[in-house]
């Protein structure tokens, strides 16, 4: 692959899904306007959402979903052995995601509720980095295709893939949204990594933190804010727990 000035190698790319809705992989096939250019950067070896071909000679693996069965662990370890770069792709992969809600209930209860008592083998949900080493994490439920395009271009051209380190509020303010705290709601924007163009808050829905903690976010100050405004602690805990992305911050809080 060439542009008139530089020559680049396509990425030998594979994409895999574990416990998830496959919404993040679907994003890879989204955005028609740039789809052709996007896939011309990739030598797709395995990606069942777009091709029935399957080859095991990939260098970079996008791993979507969380791990909730023992056979998934085996598959994941095999991917790790092959991939030079393993990317945790989407919120489920990075943090466990919505699936982690299951971990709040005894396994038996969940099986009884969901599968009506059918015998199903299932484990507590874990994120990808609980099982294998992850080289790059791209959060989002679903991921933002524009960000993926930028990161893939970075990977192809050998520059550092970068994501915003600052919180969602920056993008929210760019869109001139009224702050949801001023409308009496709890929003996780101040502690959540930006990069989604504040899509939820622009629709007047509080951020639930699908992109995980912003870098160096000031969690104590955030807790103080919720307290000061007299907002519900329970609502806060619900929101923090939604994607399991704030595990590190919620354990010591009850």
């Amino acid at each position: 692959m060439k542009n008139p000035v530089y020559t680049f190698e396509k990425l030998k790319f594979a994409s895999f899904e574990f416990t998830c809705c496959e919404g993040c992989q679907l994003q890879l096939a989204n955005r028609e306007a740039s789809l052709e250019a996007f896939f011309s950067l990739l030598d797709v070896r395995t990606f069942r959402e777009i091709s029935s071909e399957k080859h095991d000679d990939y260098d970079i693996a996008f791993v979507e979903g969380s791990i909730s069965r023992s056979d998934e662990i085996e598959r994941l370890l095999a991917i790790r052995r092959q991939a030079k770069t393993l990317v945790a792709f989407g919120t489920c992969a990075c943090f466990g995601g919505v699936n982690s809600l299951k971990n709040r209930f005894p396994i038996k209860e969940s099986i009884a509720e969901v599968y009506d008592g059918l015998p199903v083998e299932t484990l507590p949900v874990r994120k990808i980095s609980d099982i294998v080493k992850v080289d790059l994490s791209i959060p989002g439920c679903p991921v933002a295709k524009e960000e993926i395009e930028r990161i893939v271009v970075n990977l192809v051209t050998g520059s550092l893939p970068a994501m915003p380190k600052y919180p969602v509020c920056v993008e929210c303010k760019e869109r001139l949204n009224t702050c949801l705290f001023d409308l009496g709601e709890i929003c996780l924007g101040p502690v959540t990594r930006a990069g989604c163009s504040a899509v939820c808050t622009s629709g007047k829905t509080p951020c639930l933190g699908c992109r995980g903690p912003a870098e160096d976010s000031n969690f104590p100050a955030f807790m103080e804010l919720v307290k000061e405004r007299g907002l519900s602690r329970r609502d806060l805990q619900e929101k923090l727990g939604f994607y399991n992305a704030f595990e590190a911050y919620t354990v010591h809080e009850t």
Partner: protein
Amino acid sequence: MIYRVISKPEFRSFIDALVQANSSFGPRRVDTAANGDPVYQFMPVGSADDIEFDYTTTASSAKHFFLPFSEELSRFCFHERDWEQKISYEAQPVVLIGLRACDISALNILDDVLLKGNYPSPYYLAKRKNTFVIGMDHLPLPGCFCKSLAHHTVSTGFNLFCSDIGEKYYLSINSSKAFNYLKDFQTEEPSYEDNCLLTERRKLISRSFQTEVDVTSLPSILDIEFDSPVWEKWGTKCLNCGTCAMVCPSCYCYSVEERFDIDLKGASRNRKLYSCNLVDFAVVAGGHNFRPKNGDRLKYRYYHQHRGFAENGNQQICVGCNRCGRACLAGINPRDVINDLRMEKDSCMICVSQSPGRT
């Protein structure tokens, strides 16, 4: 400057004609806060009916019409083993209605920084030149402190400024464009009574300020208090969210990023407004962060706002609109931070004057 008065209905017709013929933005009510307060923003308007002439202040400033939150500065096209850079400064004409005196002062400050230095910004200039600015006076909100910085009145930097004198607007016409537009509408020479009403109006505005911030010798206090515990006190509260800088009319810091297009046939250089409160504002190559602590970052925002940097002659660039104070979720606001610093300084002076004794 030329002065005229115009009846309110005639003013409405004037604005209506202006906005129907131009891409225009004015204050619109976008929400009602939980406490019942209306929330306004500068939004596109298509007729005079869309505009809230009696609004209070907008939550975000009008800065982004001149310094967009993100802007492509140049394009690079690769061809035949070479590349070409394309730069365009074009700006569409825009009418901005309802800016407050402090908002216009902030534009004048941005002019100083972005146009009068060694490297004037053609991007900013194009937008500034192509924007027709109509100012309107108002009674301050409880937190407004522009009077402390002498920005509650403004005499340059706008095309037209309207003072509300009851039945009429008292117009200060500051450009031939504005003068020509107004020719088609009925205006009059201000009468003696109109002039009295204007003076009354100005007095009323001036006495309506409830917040005063003592900014005398603030630059030197800031220098002295560089290591003050005040920074840590407020820094601990700061969420590093950048909101203050985003809504501020005079914060202009930015980051620049270059990136390839997805087809690798071109690339772009992009500017994004940034904030010194953001965690990686002072990160350099190799990952070293010159300002790793919240307090340090917050301090630099206050330094820039209230002490000034060399590029604008060490002038304060804060105009006292208190947008940052209203928007900050952590309750950080210039009045309290500056008062704290002053108290630090005062207690320090007492100590200095007492300890040597006079014997």
